[in-house]
């Protein structure tokens, strides 16, 4: 046979280690510029308060927020609030995953089950779940139960709907391959449908996360005895702007960190999707 093919493989593998060397700045330009812009903003904010351009009672200032934060840590109440909110989030989000993923899979796989449940899912998905809060408080009281319920309701639909879409949009070519090897329905499900749904599922979790945080804050502001949202409501009512700001920062930071973590996992799987379409 021809020897020409022998040159083929090495030529292909060469492209593997072509990562070009770039300077630290060039690699992280966006991050560096972003950081500088945030720092400038914080300085300007502090300066504007110090120069009395704005009233610190309304706007607070970076230093005041830090001071309020340390005071709250020293008082120790912040831990109680964090624990409450954390527990509400953990239980609600966990429950939503446990219910949403299997139900989404079943609804994606069984057309009839989907027909039965779809009207309810659609109606509830379209309703802002916060609107259900008065009902939920009547049913579950103002303690843990109502917050878990609102977080659950906020989160379960994005998770469920995305999982369902994932199962339904399995690549037809993958199905053909599996069928061609004689795969049974059950094998098709475990070896093709399930794994190809993972990226969709992660998107569902990420979307659910945002809804969950809204649920916690609003739920606690509406009626609670502790939690970050409760703390913010009390501080707001007593004009302690600094403490409200601390609450905002805690919520924003936890949202960003969790979203970022899920995004990183998602990216890993996203690489499958994009590149598999050669």
């Amino acid at each position, binding site marked *: 046979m021809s020897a020409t*093919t022998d040159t083929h493989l090495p030529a292909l593998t060469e492209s593997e280690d072509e990562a070009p060397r770039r300077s630290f700045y060039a690699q992280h330009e966006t991050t560096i510029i972003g950081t500088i812009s945030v720092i400038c903003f914080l300085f300007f904010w502090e300066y504007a308060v110090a120069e009395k351009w704005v009233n610190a009672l309304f706007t607070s200032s970076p230093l005041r927020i830090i001071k309020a934060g340390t005071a709250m840590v020293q008082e120790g109440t912040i831990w109680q609030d964090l624990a409450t909110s954390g527990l509400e989030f953990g239980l609600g989000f966990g429950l939503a995953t446990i219910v949403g993923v299997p139900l989404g899979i079943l609804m994606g796989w069984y057309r009839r089950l989907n027909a039965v449940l779809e009207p309810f899912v659609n109606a509830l998905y379209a309703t802002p779940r916060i609107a259900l809060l008065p009902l939920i408080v009547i049913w579950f009281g103002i303690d843990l139960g109502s917050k878990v319920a609102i977080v659950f309701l906020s989160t379960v639909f994005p998770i469920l709907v995305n999982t369902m879409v994932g199962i339904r949009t399995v690549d037809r070519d993958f199905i053909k391959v599996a069928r061609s090897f004689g795969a049974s329905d059950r094998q098709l499900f475990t070896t093709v449908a399930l794994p190809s749904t993972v990226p969709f599922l992660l998107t569902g979790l990420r979307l659910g996360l945002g809804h969950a945080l809204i649920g916690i804050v609003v739920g606690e502001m509406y009626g609670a005895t502790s939690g970050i949202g409760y703390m913010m409501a009390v501080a707001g009512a007593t004009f302690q702007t600094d403490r409200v700001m601390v609450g905002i920062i805690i919520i924003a930071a936890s949202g960003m960190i969790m979203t970022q973590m899920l995004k990183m996992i998602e990216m890993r799987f996203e690489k499958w999707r994009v590149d598999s379409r050669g």
Partner: protein
Amino acid sequence: MNTSTMPKMQARGLRIGFYNERIKKRLNVLDGIDLSVAEGELVCIVGPSGCGKSTFLGAVDGLTRIDGGDVLIDGHAVTKPGPDRAMVFQHDSLFPWRTVLQNVVYGIEIQNSMSKDDMNGRGRQLVELVGLKGFEDHFPHELSGGMRQRVNIARALAPDPELLLLDEPFAALDAQTREFMQVELLKILNRAKKTALFITHQIDEAIFLSNRVAVFSARPARIKEIVSIDLPKERSLALKHETRFRDLQAHIWRLIEEESARTGLVTAS
């Protein structure tokens, strides 16, 4: 070729039609295909676009319902996919969540025909056969198109099918890679000693690879002509420049052109 033995694959008067929703009518795609492939033979199928070549291959694989006639593998009628056949699709369709090795052993896993150790041993053997030793634990997105198509071929070969069905496997590759892959496929098939049915749009590819080329007519497809490729058994890319190769090419091209003219795809001159 030993004509006294039973053909590996035999299609007898194969007819397939589909109901077309848009025009609310049944369309005949295959209108009585007779074709037999002997053990160890590589037969290419060419024909005008949309003439039903893939449908035919789907029927041989057992994925497509047959309306009339039958397909025999070793004398037994095909009703569903089986481990004696394997399909290589045009889109490599490698599972992106599986490594190269895991992709290759997929068929064995589905057919549950080997222990885990044997399966992985067989998988490694095939990865080596298609020239990808060292890439066992890579993921498909880390491979080039040509390499992915090799994995695709290895995946089809893994359950040790007797008949390999290839549906334009190189269509998505660039011209150069495609030529290399043609040589590579012949090597692989020789080593693995397989019978193969190969669909392509490229006439030169068909001639280069096969013992015989079956030319399908425009839809509803029949066999227009079966061209015996009387070229030396040892094939190299240089062959493509020889007069006999070009004559065959011109001949087959004329056949397809005639058929395409019938569908209005090409205006008759």
